[in-house]
């Protein structure tokens, strides 16, 4: 291990993997309709500057903003069997996968990375709603298990950003089996005495909510995120009445005791640093510019507490 593999290469990766600036420089807010300049919107983590509406953010963009200096190392996820059920609806599953990969520019619906936030070493996993609705299939299950194993190996907390329309129907029962499989992953963290923090983002539903998304030590949600087991439409059809405004939204779940906090995306990073550092028994984070990594000492420390002494505060 040296600082080139640990620091420079991931940084280069993150620079090259950044998406091209889209031709369309303006984007309309889904909520208030304000035209937002693309650059400003992405600087504000896809939160509308006018109304505060939280729009979709890709796991890669989220990680770039989350990790110190935008630097992170991807954690490899074991490849599951492709199309184990030979599933075919109106399209074949492999064809749907190819289309999703092309659209999202990612291989699957979850990205796992290791890195530091406020010089606090963590492992993070983020689900991608833009990839087949973030649906939980075998890859997502494998990704969460890989994330937990990496966190246990490195002795770091796991921060998981959930977002899913539910299970990946095209994987049938094998998608359902990710509920117990990811629960085993959460148990690995708990037994290792490591914090497991869930950040629930819009929308988190179905089997995802009913497994790893509701088993965290701390549950934080982005504002107004839909979080539920059964979706509002299914409930309305069952009980034949209209649901009240705000039902199953983050603030509602906070009121009903299912969440610890509702926190805007722009404040999330700081909050995660504060919480993970306390749970890991680390001193308060250093606020202000961070010193550049000083080679070997820092890299050698990578697995554990890499925080500078409190006296370095400046």
């Amino acid at each position: 291990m040296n600082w080139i593999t640990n620091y420079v290469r991931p940084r280069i990766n993150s620079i090259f993997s950044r998406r091209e600036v889209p031709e369309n420089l303006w984007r309309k807010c889904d909520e208030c309709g304000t035209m937002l300049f693309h650059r400003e919107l992405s600087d504000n983590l896809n939160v509308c500057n006018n109304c505060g509406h939280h729009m979709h953010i890709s796991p890669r963009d989220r990680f770039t903003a989350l990790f110190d200096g935008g630097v992170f190392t991807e954690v490899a996820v074991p490849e599951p069997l492709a199309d184990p059920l030979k599933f075919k609806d109106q399209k074949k599953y492999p064809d749907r996968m190819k289309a999703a990969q092309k659209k999202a520019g990612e291989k699957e619906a979850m990205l796992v990375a290791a890195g530091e936030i406020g010089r606090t070493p963590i492992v993070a996993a983020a689900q991608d709603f833009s990839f087949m609705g973030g649906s939980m299939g075998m890859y997502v299950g494998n990704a969460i298990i890989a994330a937990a194993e990496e966190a246990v190996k490195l002795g770091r907390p796991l921060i998981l950003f959930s977002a899913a329309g539910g299970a990946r129907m095209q994987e049938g029962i094998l998608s359902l089996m990710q509920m117990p499989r990811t629960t085993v992953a959460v148990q690995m963290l708990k037994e290792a005495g490591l914090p497991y923090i869930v950040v629930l983002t819009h929308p988190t539903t179905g089997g995802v909510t009913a497994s790893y998304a509701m088993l965290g030590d701390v549950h934080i949600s982005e504002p107004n995120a839909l979080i539920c087991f059964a979706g509002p439409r299914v409930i309305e059809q069952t009980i034949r009445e209209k649901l009240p405004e705000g039902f199953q939204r983050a603030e509602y779940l906070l009121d009903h005791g299912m969440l610890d906090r509702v926190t805007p995306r722009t404040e999330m990073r700081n909050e995660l640093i504060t919480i993970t550092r306390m749970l890991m028994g680390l001193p308060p984070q250093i606020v202000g510019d961070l010193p550049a990594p000083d080679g070997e000492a820092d890299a050698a420390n990578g697995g554990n507490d890499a925080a500078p002494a409190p006296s370095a505060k400046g």
Partner: protein
Amino acid sequence: MTQYLDFEKPLAEIEGKAEELRALARANEEMDVAEEAAALDAKAAQLLVDLYKDLTPWRKCQVARHPERPHCRDYIDALFTEYTPLAGDRNFADDLAVMGGLARFNDQPVVVIGHEKGSDTKARIAHNFGMARPEGYRKAIRLMEMAGRFGLPVVTLVDTAGAYPGKGAEERGQSEAIARSTEMCLKIGVPLISIIIGEGGSGGAVAFATANRVAMLEHSIYSVISPEGCASILWKDAEKMREAAEALRLTAQNLRELAVVDRVIPEPLGGAHRDADSAFSAVRAALAEMLKELSGKDAAELVKDRRQKFLAIGSKGLPA
């Protein structure tokens, strides 16, 4: 009187004719219908064999949901002694969609938990058609935890269309209750055996079926979503449930091939509801064997066995 499923209509006609003949003979002593009726019986018997020889996945769904199919309560009455129901989640309510308590199986004390759908209109409403609310899962969690502390094996009988999609259920944390129930299944250091007796509907089933051994009755189903739900999402047409049932691979036979299920328990000809006693005997024998398989293992081994089993699921696809 058997309630016939739509695909059993030809059978209903033949059996109906035989019944008519016999009724006629009872009213009219001179008539001798024995031979004719026997011929119809033979024809019906053969038709039943043919119909059930190779049920399509959708037909299996219909059999699994048959209103006269033996339910959780029937299995508990038939297989266990000294069943002592225990109620409530100690928090909000007692959910009758989930029944559970202490009982003996071949004299061995166990905890038995299951979804109960109810067998007549009044009971169906009381049991909410077997669709549990958070209280049901929290009752199960409480009973499993207790079983773990007292070293009692846990037997779960799964028969639910799914967890109840209602306002109160969401309000009181349906997701969290299901997640914790699955977690408790993985935690307890006692043998946990799950038998899917009818419908294994999605997360509501997983919450009970994360077991050391999972068995399914021959015509039961286990799926991530109902065929109707899947059809309405992927085909944009709920009437495509036959296609969806096919694609989802929700039959006991497919799930055995995928190593999700350890054992398929044979049903009597024409489904468990046509001969409940044979179904009970088959389940009794399978349960005894599964308990025996697990009897030598200590708490740590049982927990490890369960984890390994689920971590390994997915390494096997359907045969080409």
